[in-house]
């Protein structure tokens, strides 16, 4: 029972970080149908940016987090402006190919600036362990859960209530009609990339606290793919639920069955779910009326 609670908290904590990374992917996919293969590398960038701000510049963590988010937003907008905007109107596949290139570029830049050796920065998430009943769980993963959930709820509100949020969903539904409403497609795409980069950076910051600053963070970032495929490529709720499921499965499989399997089980479950629900758990319903 104690082990179960421990694994559950750790799984959910990790899962919510996956969800943060995945939600950026979903935003870009929803707005522009582009599958962003560089999402994991945006996460990596966030991790190194916070390391840079805290250790190399020596900023207090609050300022460091803000700076990281700001730089990430700038990177998102810059990527949209320089790489993707010229491709608007070209087949989607060329944009997707570009994100694969972008992934290598981001990774190479991180490698060139910071090298391959692992780094650390003083963690600012609560450290140590917390007793939940008789179970011992690590505090940083525990706080990651409400933190990530609050961020994701804020994002959901953004999509329901704000002008840009509604514009973004409108473009996802019908570009021509959105255009006829005076919605500027380049501006919405830029917003989508900025949001995606910022949420990924926040995920990266949390990962930096929990696992440290290493190139492996990009590997962890690759978990967005099972998460979004499971949840549905275009569903924010799906990203949250998918993240939770993948995180939990990883930790349950690792804890109860043994090491190694924790990396396989999530994919097995993924395949089974897709056989039953090809669009993922929350994939967009196609409305058919004739």
């Amino acid at each position, binding site marked *: 029972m104690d082990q179960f609670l421990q694994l559950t908290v750790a799984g959910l904590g990790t899962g919510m970080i996956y969800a943060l990374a995945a939600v950026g992917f979903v935003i870009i996919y929803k707005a522009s149908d582009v599958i962003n293969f560089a999402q994991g590398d945006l996460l990596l960038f966030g991790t190194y940016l916070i390391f840079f701000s805290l250790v190399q510049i020596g900023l207090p963590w609050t300022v460091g987090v803000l700076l990281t988010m700001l730089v990430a937003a700038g990177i998102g907008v810059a990527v949209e402006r320089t790489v993707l905007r010229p491709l608007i109107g070209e087949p989607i596949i060329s944009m997707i190919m570009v994100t694969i290139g972008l992934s290598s570029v981001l990774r190479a830049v991180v490698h060139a600036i910071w090298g391959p050796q692992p780094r650390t920065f003083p963690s600012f998430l609560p450290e140590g362990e917390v007793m939940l009943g008789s179970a011992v769980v690590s505090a940083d993963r525990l706080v990651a859960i409400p933190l990530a959930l609050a961020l994701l709820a804020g994002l959901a509100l953004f999509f329901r209530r704000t002008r840009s949020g509604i514009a973004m969903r409108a473009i996802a539904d*019908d570009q021509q009609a*959105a255009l*006829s409403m*005076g919605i500027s497609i380049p501006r919405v795409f830029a917003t989508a990339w900025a949001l995606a980069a910022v949420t990924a950076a926040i995920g990266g910051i949390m990962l930096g606290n929990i696992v440290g600053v290493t190139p492996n963070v990009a590997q962890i970032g690759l978990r967005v793919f099972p998460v979004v495929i499971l949840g549905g490529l275009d569903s924010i709720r799906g990203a949250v639920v998918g993240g939770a499921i993948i995180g939990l499965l990883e930790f349950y499989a690792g804890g109860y069955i043994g090491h190694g399997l924790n990396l396989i089980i999530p994919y097995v479950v993924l395949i089974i779910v897709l056989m039953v629900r090809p669009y993922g758990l929350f994939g967009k319903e196609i409305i058919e009326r004739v």
Partner: protein
Amino acid sequence: MSSVSALLELNSVEVLYDDVILVLRGLSLEVPEGHIVALLGSNGAGKTTTLKAISGLLKVEDGEVTDGLIRFDGHEIHGLPADRIVRRGIFQVVEGRHVFEHLTVHENLLAGAHTRRDRGGVPDDLKRVYGYFPRLAERKRQWAGYLSGGEQQMLALGRALMARPRLMLLDEPSLGLAPILVQEIFGIIRRINEEEGTTILLVEQNARLALSVADYGYVMESGRVVLEGSAEELGDNEDVREFYLGLSEIGRRSYRDVKHYRRRKRWLS
């Protein structure tokens, strides 16, 4: 029609698709402020292309205005991006409704208000739109994709109202709707013109219907205007009576035209 204060003026406009297909061949027309002007013509005459040339939607379809003038309120607007044109006060209700299916009715209306600068006026305008279309008010929280065709057309008009445009471009608002709904929609188009003072350029296949609300009309054939006149003049014109009103065997012929037309459209989409 020559009037001093045309809100919209097209002069010898040429439109080319994909750099080779010439679709508008020197089209000229005027829409005076506060009026409803009908643009009639058979399939493929270039009516939709005309509206898109005005609203700036041509660009995303590889279409281009290669010659002529498009003036709105005295200023040349050709070449402006679509969102700037909306901000100037021109709103096109595109053919085939195009509601945002996965947005609620309410959110669709908010999307229509996207370019509004006076955000404070939005709640009042929502009330106004629900006043015009009580049926939309009942379905506020419902996904627009699940509305009936008539309700979707109402939503498309409601979205346009939310932008508070000076000029509305309506592309076949009667398309695929039952006669009773068509009556209702056209009643509201007339009210929008009278109560909001909105100028309207109305494209229609159904000439009789269009002429029943319009002050003036143009008839297009292969990319240019072949006939124009006041609504009464056109209604009395022999050619119009024969080709566009189909006066001898109205019921059946126009019904079959509509069916044929809808089928063609569906293959295209």
